[in-house]
């Protein structure tokens, strides 16, 4: 069968099971867009900016576990994707980006809309390709999907010059196994590694599991719970690890790190064995490395060999797929009891004021923590939440417990403001049956609010909660703590978000009192014809407690002020 390169792209995407592509057309990718008319099985979502398209693909990938696909033209189209690609890279999200490129003969001549896209994206992709021969196209696309979804997942970019899209070749889909001699994702642990790990586990009196995104990506939720229960080991979660175990599970302590609860960080500091499962000791979870977890021995299981001993020296490093490793490990360990240790952590837990915050009187004020807590209550704790970056993101992590994996989508590693709205659109398209909520700040929302147009055009029934404190709240918080309250460049004069929504034909409600939250949330949930927007006008000078100042010791936290009715 003779096909053009453009047609081969769609044929290959179909064979990868792609149903939706997020993108934005332009000159150098036009042959591919033109060929799409022959493939009605694939739905194209027109974003309003290429960054939005990559975040949508990312959000789609994170809730479905499938590879998200984004498409853009050469030059500015491709460079606009860079933030989205870097976001996916830092959070190991599997996306494939296909970009048009100027014709092969024009490459290197500074042609119109030419950029060295494989050069630009080299440090922020797991791998990338420039395809200069149409005969390589099918193989390359197959390799790209394989690399994106296997091992430690990540973004892969394929740059396709316009003449390659137009070139005609005999299309035979390659059925033979993928040959990638330099790419061999790890599988399980060796017997020796298992024995070393088991010896440490048997000796431990105060063990603690640090569960990260890897648990969810390897699908090891059940295995994690079984292992933790068998060894009676408490679990602390990273931000992206939320959902690795139901947060109401008695062994689940909640989030660790900079804005984790103090007792979680204290448990890390006082444990005698840390088992890091699919997490990478990011500086936001360790604080000062010189004083981090000095009393414990450490086992680290990660699929990426370069993560072992990167930030924290460990006693046993196991490179492997977490699910496989836990399946190997759990049957080999006899049931263990750590009642005293669990009791001790529970005692520390009583010492924090989280409950008091939730119950503190609102007194006609609207606190963001209340908004998130009530949102959790009125969505039955079952929503898929997609956050932006900043204070609201941390409040979400603190006050919205997640019971299932793939129900929190957030930019953890790169901390990309503007991620929330487009990622929520991708998430809702990927899981239309879920109650998807974009929880965004007024700052981040305005970075990509242009994607309201996409949500409108596609009638994506995502609920958008803007936590509006008229500040770049997290930066303001740092200014309050560390820059003597010089609130420079953080106050925001915002538009009327409800009127903005109205311009897009999106129904919107402004909430200013706690007692109005319920009705607004119920209205949003009942409306399924398209997006729904709620603006929560919250307290301007609120703070995310507790907090480990950047670079400070993990247990040196700025704690919540003790609960008094009048505290702010």
């Amino acid at each position: 069968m003779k096909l053009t390169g453009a047609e081969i792209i769609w044929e290959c995407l179909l064979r990868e099971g792609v149903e939706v592509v997020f993108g934005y057309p332009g000159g150098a990718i036009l042959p591919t867009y033109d060929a799409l008319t022959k493939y009605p099985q694939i739905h194209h979502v027109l974003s309003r900016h290429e960054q939005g398209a990559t975040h949508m693909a990312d959000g789609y990938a994170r809730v479905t576990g499938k590879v998200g696909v984004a498409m853009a033209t050469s030059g500015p189209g491709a460079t606009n994707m860079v933030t989205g690609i870097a976001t996916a890279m830092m959070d190991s999200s599997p996306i494939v980006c296909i970009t048009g490129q100027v014709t092969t003969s024009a490459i290197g001549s500074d042609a119109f809309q030419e950029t060295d896209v494989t050069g630009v994206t080299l440090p922020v992709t797991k791998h990338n390709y420039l395809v200069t021969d149409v005969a390589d196209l099918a193989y390359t696309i197959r390799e790209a999907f394989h690399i994106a979804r296997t091992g430690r997942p990540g973004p892969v970019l394929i740059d396709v010059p316009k003449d390659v899209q137009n070139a005609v070749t005999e299309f035979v889909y390659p059925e033979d196994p993928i040959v990638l001699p330099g790419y061999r994702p790890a599988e399980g642990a060796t017997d020796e590694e298992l024995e070393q790990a088991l010896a440490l586990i048997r000796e431990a009196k105060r063990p603690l599991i640090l569960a990260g995104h890897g648990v969810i990506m390897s699908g090891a939720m059940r295995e994690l719970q079984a292992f933790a229960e068998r060894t009676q080991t408490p679990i602390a979660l990273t931000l992206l690890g939320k959902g690795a175990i139901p947060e109401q599970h008695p062994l689940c302590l909640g989030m660790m790190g900079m804005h984790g609860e103090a007792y979680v960080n204290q448990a890390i500091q006082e444990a005698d064995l840390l088992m890091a499962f699919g997490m990478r000791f990011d500086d936001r979870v360790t604080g000062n490395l010189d004083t981090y977890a000095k009393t414990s021995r450490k086992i680290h299981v990660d699929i990426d060999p370069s993560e072992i001993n990167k930030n924290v020296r460990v006693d046993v490093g196991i490179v492997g797929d977490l699910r496989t490793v836990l399946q190997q490990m759990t049957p080999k360990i006899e049931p263990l009891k750590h009642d005293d240790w669990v009791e001790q952590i529970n005692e520390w837990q009583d010492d924090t004021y989280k409950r008091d915050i939730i119950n503190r009187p609102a007194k006609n004020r609207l606190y963001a923590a209340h908004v998130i807590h009530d949102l959790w209550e009125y969505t039955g704790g079952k929503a898929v939440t997609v956050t932006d970056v900043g204070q609201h993101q941390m409040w979400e992590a603190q006050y919205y417990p997640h019971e299932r994996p793939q129900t929190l989508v957030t930019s953890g590693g790169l901390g990309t403001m503007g991620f929330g709205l487009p990622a929520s659109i991708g998430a809702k398209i990927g899981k239309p049956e879920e109650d998807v909520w974009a929880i965004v700040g007024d700052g981040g929302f305005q970075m990509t609010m242009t994607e309201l147009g996409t949500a409108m055009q596609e009638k994506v029934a995502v609920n958008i909660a803007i936590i509006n404190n008229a500040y770049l709240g997290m930066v303001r918080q740092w200014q309050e703590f560390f820059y003597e309250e010089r609130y420079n460049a953080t106050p925001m004069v915002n538009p009327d978000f409800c009127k903005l929504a109205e311009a897009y034909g999106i129904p919107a409600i402004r909430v200013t009192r706690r007692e109005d939250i319920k009705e607004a949330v119920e209205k949003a949930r009942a409306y399924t014809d398209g997006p729904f927007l709620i603006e929560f006008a919250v307290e301007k000078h609120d703070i995310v407690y507790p907090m480990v100042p950047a670079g400070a010791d993990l247990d040196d936290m700025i704690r919540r002020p003790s609960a008094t009715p009048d505290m702010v």
Partner: protein
Amino acid sequence: MKHTLTALVENKPGVLNRVVSLFRRRGFNIDSLTVGRTHTPEISRMTIVMEGTELEAQKVEKNLFKLVNVIQVDQLNGKPTVSRDLALIKVAVNSSTRSEVMQLCDIFRARIVDVSRDSVIIEITGDERKIESFTQMLEPLGIIEMVRTGVVAMGRGEHRLSPEGYQPAPTSNGKTYKSVL
């Protein structure tokens, strides 16, 4: 201390760029990097010499291994190894110093490969220390210019780096796979 790593990589344009970009963005300090083809045309071999701790050398090794185009990586430190560096050195000579230069070449088993009226080019092969002591001896005579290839290294005897059943991928047209990067 110095660490020597050696890697087999796919011989594709752009692979060197991937390796160098990795070193730059991870902040690895590289003394020298050499690359050239092997007896298998699709595979090139790199020798990398770096300054750093054992832990840093491990980080370089693991990150190299992560690159899709890198087939094998090995650290040669502590293993029996042959390592060689080649230098071309242009030295100023006159009638009174020429014989001294020739004597030094004899002692160091270097060769004079070009002679002109007031200079010679010397070729010397050896490990880094030998080349360094040779240049120290030549310095008073006047080194005009110098170029070195950087270290190439190979494990002795049984210690070998093999691509483990490497085969180039075919394309749908049956040609050899070539991706231009």
